[in-house]
């Protein structure tokens, strides 16, 4: 053996190092392939940053919400549907984050590492939303900023989502950045909104009371119209817990809140799941509601908090989820609207599975709350407001330092065979029942009509 032959080991080592690097490169390229391929500069999938090589997005009835025709991304013909789906679909220009055309680009483009990009994606994304109902809700919001959402409280499937202000993706307003009417237009208020809750928060206080004050149903409170700083909407005189909730008596609920103390209200707030920032299956991150009280706060502050008028801010999505849990025996599934994605052959490449929202209200408490909210409607607001739908709910008229109050309505159908919960918030509008309640009523009645027929 020549001495030089031993030295060949160097070239063999060089080759081995190269092989190791090649294996690392393969691993890196294969494991990141999806991320790389879906970069918005990929001309196979995007045109000017718009995902054009993408399949259809359809609503629950198969109505096309977005599709690609001749290499161009198109949307539904109805301007109201286009506007009501702006936030859900995304604007494709990066202004609206979290639109499903971006977050579900993988499913829409049908990319997979084995076959690479599709020449023309035939994947469809199927939503649980009803486009016509969304458009109706959008119209009900009218010129007010706010949001309406309806979901199946047994499954978490959203059937209606609308958020205003919005715009028609085909006619983006030119003064969008200067006109105050369009302030916050890029945000879907259902997920990103935070509002003073007003009286809807009394449901949380009531939850705390049921769980912590044993004789709450036999107790009476006295309202002479004011209690210190707190002013009531009426002079209720002697009033029971149930009637206090029905008539939204501020004085009684402030007294209950003070009696409970900050800890118990915090506890109920967390039990209701309001403290959670959800990252739901639609790949949307929601804002968590905010409650800032502890034992060092004055009674007045705790009283204000108990009636939803302190520094508390509530996110509509988290409150809708809370309503679902109350309606559904204490448990709920995170509301979602992307049902499944299927490829050309109908094979599902994505399928949503209901995710437990983490809310766990005691079953007895939930049914007591359900009856309380039912009596709000039957004994106080009036069943006639909701037509054929047997509703439970609570209104809120959140007073603000300047401007008209935010109108809230949170509720659900009492009837198990029509298992829908609703949330409606109309900013700077006025009375909760008049604005939010009637908007919620229109949407729920329309949905009921569709379901019955």
């Amino acid at each position: 053996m020549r001495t030089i032959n031993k030295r060949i080991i160097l070239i063999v080592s060089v080759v081995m190092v190269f092989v190791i690097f090649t294996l690392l490169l393969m691993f890196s390229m294969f494991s990141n392939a999806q991320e790389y391929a879906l970069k918005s500069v990929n001309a196979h999938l995007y045109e000017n940053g718009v995902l054009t090589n993408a399949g259809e997005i359809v609503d629950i009835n198969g109505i096309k919400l977005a599709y690609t025709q001749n290499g161009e991304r198109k949307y539904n013909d109805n301007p109201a549907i286009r506007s009501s789906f702006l936030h859900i679909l995304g604007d494709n220009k990066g202004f609206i984050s979290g639109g499903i055309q971006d977050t579900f680009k993988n499913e829409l483009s049908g990319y997979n590492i084995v076959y690479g990009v599709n020449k023309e994606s035939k994947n469809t994304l199927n939503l649980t939303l009803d486009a016509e109902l969304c458009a109706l809700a959008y119209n009900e919001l009218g010129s007010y900023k706010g949001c309406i959402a309806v979901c199946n409280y047994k499954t978490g499937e959203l059937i209606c989502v609308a958020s205003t202000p919005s715009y028609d993706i085909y006619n983006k307003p030119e003064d969008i950045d200067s006109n105050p009417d369009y302030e916050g237009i890029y945000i879907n208020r259902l997920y990103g909104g935070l509002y003073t809750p007003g009286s809807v928060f009394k449901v949380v206080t009531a939850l705390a009371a049921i769980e912590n004050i044993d004789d709450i149903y036999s107790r009476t409170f006295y309202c002479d119209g004011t209690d210190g700083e707190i002013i009531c909407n009426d002079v209720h005189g002697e009033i029971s817990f149930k009637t206090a909730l029905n008539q939204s008596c501020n004085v009684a609920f402030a007294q209950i809140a003070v009696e409970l103390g900050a800890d118990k209200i915090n506890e109920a707030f967390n039990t209701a799941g309001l403290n959670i920032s959800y990252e739901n299956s639609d790949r949307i991150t929601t804002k968590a509601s905010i409650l800032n009280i502890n034992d060092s706060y004055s009674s007045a502050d705790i009283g204000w908090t108990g009636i939803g008028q302190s520094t508390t801010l509530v996110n509509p999505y988290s409150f809708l989820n809370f309503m679902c849990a109350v309606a559904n025996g204490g448990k709920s599934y995170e509301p979602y609207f992307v049902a499944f994605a299927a490829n050309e052959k109908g094979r599902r490449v994505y399928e949503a599975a209901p995710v437990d929202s983490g809310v766990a209200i005691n079953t007895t408490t939930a049914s007591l709350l359900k009856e309380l909210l039912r009596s709000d409607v039957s004994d106080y607001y009036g069943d006639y407001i909701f037509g054929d739908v047997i509703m439970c709910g609570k209104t809120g008229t959140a007073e603000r330092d300047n401007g008209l109050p935010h109108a809230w309505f949170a509720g659900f159908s009492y009837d198990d065979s029509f298992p829908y919960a609703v949330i409606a918030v109309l900013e700077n509008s006025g009375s909760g029942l008049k604005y939010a309640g009637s908007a919620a009523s229109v949407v729920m009645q329309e949905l009921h009509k569709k379901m019955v027929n």
Partner: protein
Amino acid sequence: METTKNKKLYFGRPGSMYGLISLLVMLFLTIYQVIMSYCVLSQDSENFSELLLYFASFIIAEWIYFFIFAIVQNRHISLEMIAFALSSISLFVTASVSPSKTQTQFVAIFIGLALYIAMVQYMKSTTRTGAIRVPMAVAAIGLLAFTLVFASYTNGAKNWIYIGPISIQPSEFVKLAFIYVGAATLDKIQSTKSLTAYVFFSVGCVGLLGLMSDFGTALIYFATFILIAFLRSGDIRTIVLVCTAAVIGAILILTLKSYILNRFASYRHIWEHMYDSGGYQQTRTLIYSASGGFFGVGIGNGHLRDIFAATEDLIFGLVCEELGMLTGFLIVITLVLLALAASYNAKFSRSSFFTIAACAAAGMIIVQTALNVFGVTDFLPLTGVTLPFVSRGGSSMICSWGLLAFLKAADSRSYPQLSKSGKRNRR
């Protein structure tokens, strides 16, 4: 002895499958090339007849080579089959991306093949290998110096010479001289004087390339120098010393001329430089490679071809996108096998000249492949070197065939008439 000498590799030798396997490989290769030809031709009616001529000529030439060297002369031609396969990919890609440049690529492959045959023939004799080393060294240095003086900057490096319509990259041809001179010098006289002379020659070559700002090629030369020096001396300390000196030298140059460093500033940060020249090519390479998936989007359907230097520096990405990542990595694996086969055969070569030359050539191929493939994928800084046999470029193609000749010459089976037993001479 007489009977074993005439052992037939291909036909008439009982028990040997080699001939049959070679024939099958040739058939598969031809089928692949016919399919590729069809795919390219079906997309280009304008240049149909011209391209058809090139493709058909290539396939016919392959079979003529197979007939003459394998069947008539009874030689192993595995290395050539690999080179034919890779060269044909470069021909198809060039024809598909820039049809007007196919002619050059086609001619370059044939010049490369002719050079290969000539070099293998020349190295048949072990006695004359040392004869032309001094004039070759002088010519190599002269050519690089000439390039430095007369070339103009092309894409940041001063490495192209234009003679009428022909443009050549002298540093590619000097690669062959560099290996030849290195192997021949150290083979002949193991004196300090000749070693010193070779060190000066190497420093000259690497220095001139550095001055041309062709850092990728300079690095390839340097790595090859290290390989040759180690194969000759076997002294790991000297190698460490040389590398340390080189690193210090590089740091010194980079400190003095910090603008050079800016060229590599985006290394490992390419996604932050997606829209500027720092990371544009690398990010597109990764994006479009991924887009191809394992099987590719099909030749002609890619988008990386629209990016600058797609068929040269970015060829790996282009192959991954259009022909699939499996093909891309298969090419890399093929080059690895080429290098491993060379280092194995080098053990049984006729003299240490062939061992050194083959190992140096194999090392050069691997280092260049590493700089190319890992450069465009951001594993290493992007230096802009070609992928042997596959990148478009005449000089690079001819040099690749020249390097292959060193691998071939080290394999004792390449010269069956010289071998007494017809078997490998195990020493």
